[in-house]
C-alpha cells in the first residue's frame, strides 16, 4: 500500500493510454514539421482532458488541479504536441476566474506579457504592443491576457483573428509565436482575488515543472532500455560502470523532478504554495540539465539523430527550462525567502515550506 497522492487513477490510465496511441515517435515528428497536430488535439479534446480543474458550471471538465497536473506530466512523458497547459491550468484558469466563456478550442496565454499596453473602457479592452514566445498562438481560439489596470487584475479574451501572428518556434520545434496586438479590442473583466501576475507566474512554473518531470522520466527509461539492448565489447553497455553512472544519475533526477512537481502540486491544490513551486521549478530546471547530459552521453551518436526519439524530450526540456523562470529567477526568489528566515528558521523552511512563510 502506498499513500494516495490524490490523483484520480483513471485520469492517469486513460491519459497514458490515449497518448500511447496517438503520440508515437512519428506523430510527434510530423507535428513538428507541420507546426501543429490537429488530429492529436481533437482526440485529446474529445476526452475533456484539456479542461480538467475548471468547474463544470464554468464550462470545464471538473476535477482537481492535481488531476490536471497529472495530465500535464503525461503530456511531457509522451511529448504530446498540444497546448495542454495553456488551454487548461493557465488560459482556462484565467478565463474562468474572470467570468469569460471557455471556448471549445485551444487557448493560449502570454508567458511574458508585460509589454502590452491596455486601455479599458467599460467591459472592453483595447490592446497595443507585440508579444514574443506565445505558445501555439497560431491554432488558438482565444488568447487570455492578464493585465493590471489601476491595481486591478483583469483578463481580456482576445480573438487571435484580430492580431497579426508570426510563426516562431522553440528549440523543440513547438510553436512559440510572435503576436502583434495593435488595435485589437476584446471583452475584458476583473479577476477573482488571488489571480494576478504573480500567481500566474507561479502557476506557469508549476505547469512546466509537471511537463518536465514527465519528460525526464521518459528520457531516463529510454536510456535504461537502450543501454541494455546495445551490445559493445560483447556485452550490454549498461554493464559498464561508466555507463551505470549515467543511468543512475538520470534516474535520480527523474525521481527528484517528479517528487518536486508532485509535492508542489499537492500544496498548490490546497492553498498558497509559493515555496514549493519555486523549489520545484528550480529543481526541474537543474534536473533537466543533468538528465539530458547523462541520457545523451549514454546514447552515444544514436541520441543525436532525428530518427531516434530522445530529442523529443531533451529539446523540450532545454526549452521548458527557460519558460516561466530560469534558474536565476527562482534561485533569487528562494534565496530571499531563505535569508529572510535567518539561521534559526532555515531548516524549518526546508521541512515546512510555504507554511512557515505565510
Amino acid at each position, binding site marked *: 500500500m502506498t499513500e494516495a497522492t490524490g490523483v484520480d487513477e483513471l485520469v492517469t490510465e486513460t491519459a497514458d493510454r490515449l497518448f500511447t496511441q496517438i503520440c508515437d515517435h512519428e506523430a510527434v515528428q510530423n507535428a513538428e514539421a507541420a507546426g501543429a497536430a490537429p488530429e492529436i488535439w481533437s482526440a485529446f479534446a474529445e476526452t475533456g482532458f484539456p479542461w480538467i480543474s475548471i468547474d463544470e458550471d464554468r464550462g470545464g471538465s471538473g476535477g482537481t488541479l492535481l488531476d490536471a497536473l497529472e495530465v500535464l506530466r503525461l503530456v511531457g512523458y509522451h511529448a504530446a504536441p498540444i497546448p495542454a497547459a495553456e488551454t487548461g491550468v493557465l488560459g482556462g484558469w484565467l478565463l474562468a476566474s474572470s467570468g469569460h466563456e471557455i471556448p471549445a478550442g485551444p487557448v493560449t496565454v502570454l508567458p511574458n506579457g508585460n509589454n502590452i499596453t491596455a486601455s479599458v473602457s467599460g467591459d472592453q479592452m483595447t490592446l497595443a504592443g507585440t508579444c514574443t514566445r506565445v505558445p501555439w498562438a497560431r491554432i488558438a481560439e482565444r488568447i487570455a491576457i492578464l493585465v493590471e489596470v489601476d491595481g486591478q487584475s483583469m483578463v481580456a479574451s482576445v480573438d487571435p483573428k484580430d492580431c497579426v501572428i508570426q510563426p516562431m518556434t522553440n528549440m523543440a520545434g513547438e510553436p512559440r509565436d510572435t503576436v502583434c496586438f495593435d488595435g485589437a479590442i476584446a471583452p475584458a473583466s476583473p479577476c477573482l482575488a488571488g489571480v494576478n501576475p504573480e500567481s500566474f507566474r507561479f502557476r506557469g512554473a508549476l505547469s512546466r515543472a509537471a511537463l518536465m518531470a514527465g519528460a525526464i522520466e521518459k528520457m531516463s527509461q529510454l536510456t*535504461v532500455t537502450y543501454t541494455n539492448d546495445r551490445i559493445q565489447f560483447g556485452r550490454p553497455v549498461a554493464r559498464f560502470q561508466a555507463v551505470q553512472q549515467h*543511468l543512475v544519475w538520470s534516474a535520480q533526477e527523474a525521481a527528484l523532478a517528479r517528487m518536486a512537481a508532485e509535492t508542489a502540486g499537492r500544496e498548490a491544490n490546497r492553498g498558497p504554495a509559493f515555496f514549493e513551486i519555486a*523549489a520545484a521549478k528550480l529543481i526541474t530546471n537543474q534536473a533537466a540539465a543533468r538528465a539530458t547530459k547523462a541520457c545523451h552521453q549514454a546514447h552515444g551518436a544514436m541520441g543525436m539523430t532525428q530518427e531516434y526519439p530522445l530529442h523529443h524530450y531533451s529539446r523540450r526540456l532545454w526549452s521548458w527550462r527557460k519558460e516561466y523562470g530560469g534558474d536565476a529567477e527562482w534561485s533569487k526568489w528562494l*534565496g530571499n*525567502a531563505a535569508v529572510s528566515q535567518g*539561521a534559526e528558521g*532555515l531548516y524549518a523552511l526546508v521541512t515546512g515550506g510555504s507554511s512557515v512563510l505565510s
Partner: protein
Amino acid sequence: MRFTPTELTEEELGLQQQVRDFLQEELPPGSHEPCLGMAANKDKAFSLKMAERGWVGMALPKEWGGSDRTAVDRFIVVEEMLRWGAPVGHHWVGDRQTGNVILKFGTEEQRERFLPAICRGELGFSIGMSEPDSGSDLASVSTRAEQTTDGWIINGTKIWTSGAHENDWFVCLLRTSPMEDGNKHAGLSQLLIDLKSPGLEISPIPFLDGSHHFNEVTFNEVFVPDINVVGDLGMGWHQNTTEMAYERGGPDRWLSPFSTVEQLLREAKGTELEDTVSDLFGELVARWWGIRNLSLSVARLIDTGEAPSIESSLVKEMGTRYEQEVVEKLVHLIDIEYSPDSDSLFERLLAQCVVTFPGNTIRGGTIEILRSVASKGLKGLPV
C-alpha cells in the same frame, strides 16, 4: 521504482516539535561545536538522555525496550539531531542497524541481552566488514572462524573499524566455512564479538587530519561462544545485505553539511556577504527540500513492510554527492582563506567539511558499488 510523495501527520509533526524543543534546551545554538552528520562525537550522557525519551532504538518492539515507533518517527528524530549537529555517535550504529539485525535474525537470548541495552543508549557497536584485501568486494572476506566444542576461534584482521577503541561490541562478517568455487556468498556468518575479548587487538589508523576514528582490529585466537552467532550459519551475506539497506537513504546521507550552511547564514546576516550568498541559499534549500522528500518517502515505504533497496541506494548515491557539492559551492563562493583554528565557527566547520567529506561517498558502500546495485534494479534485475 516509485517514490510516492508523503508528508508528516499531525502526530509526527508533534514529535518533530518535541525533538526541536529538546535540542533547544539541551544544546542551544552557541553552546556546542556542531558535529558534521553521523561522524558525530560520542557523548554517552547525551545518548542516555535521548534514550530516556524513547528516541534510541525507537522502532524496536516495546517488549525489548523499544517504543514500537515507525521508520518515519525514527527519520524525524535522526533528521533533527543531524541538522542540529548533535553528538549522536555513541548510540548511532546500534540504533540504525545492529538493533534491527538482532531483532530480525538474533536468538531470543540475544534479543534479551542486547536490545534493551541498545534502547537505554548504553551500548556502542562497531561494524566489522572490510579487511586489508576486501573492500568493495566484500564477499571476499577471509577472516576465519573455526569451530571448537562450544564456540569459535577467530584469526584475521578487520580494518576501517570506526570507534572500535570506544565501543563495546563488534558485529563481524566472518568466513565460517571455506570458500567454495563459484559461490563466494556462501559460508559467511555474522558474529557478535566483545571488543574486550582476549587476543583482540585494536590499533588506530589515524584519519587524514590526525583524528582517531578508524582502527585496525586483529584477532589472534579470539574465542567467541556459540551463543554469539547471529542468525543461521552461512547466512551472513544475506543478513549483511539486509543490514546495509538500513544504512542507506536516511538523513545521514544528505544532511552532513547543514550545520555549516546554517552557520554561514548566521555569520553573513546583516553583512555584505548576505547578498553574495542569497542565491546560493535558494538553490540549497530547494535541493534539500527535494532530497528530503525522496528520503522521507523511502522511510514511509519501509513502514509499509517493503525493502526499498533500489530507492535507498539512489538516495544515498545522490545525497552523499550532494553533500560534497554543497561544500564545493561554499568554497567557490566564499573567497576567504578558511582555517581549522579560525575564530569563526563557519570557517572551522568548512575546513572540516573540506578535509573529511571525500569519505562521504565511500563509507557504507562506495557510490560506484551503489550505482552497480541501483542500475541492475532499474532494469528490474535482482540486486
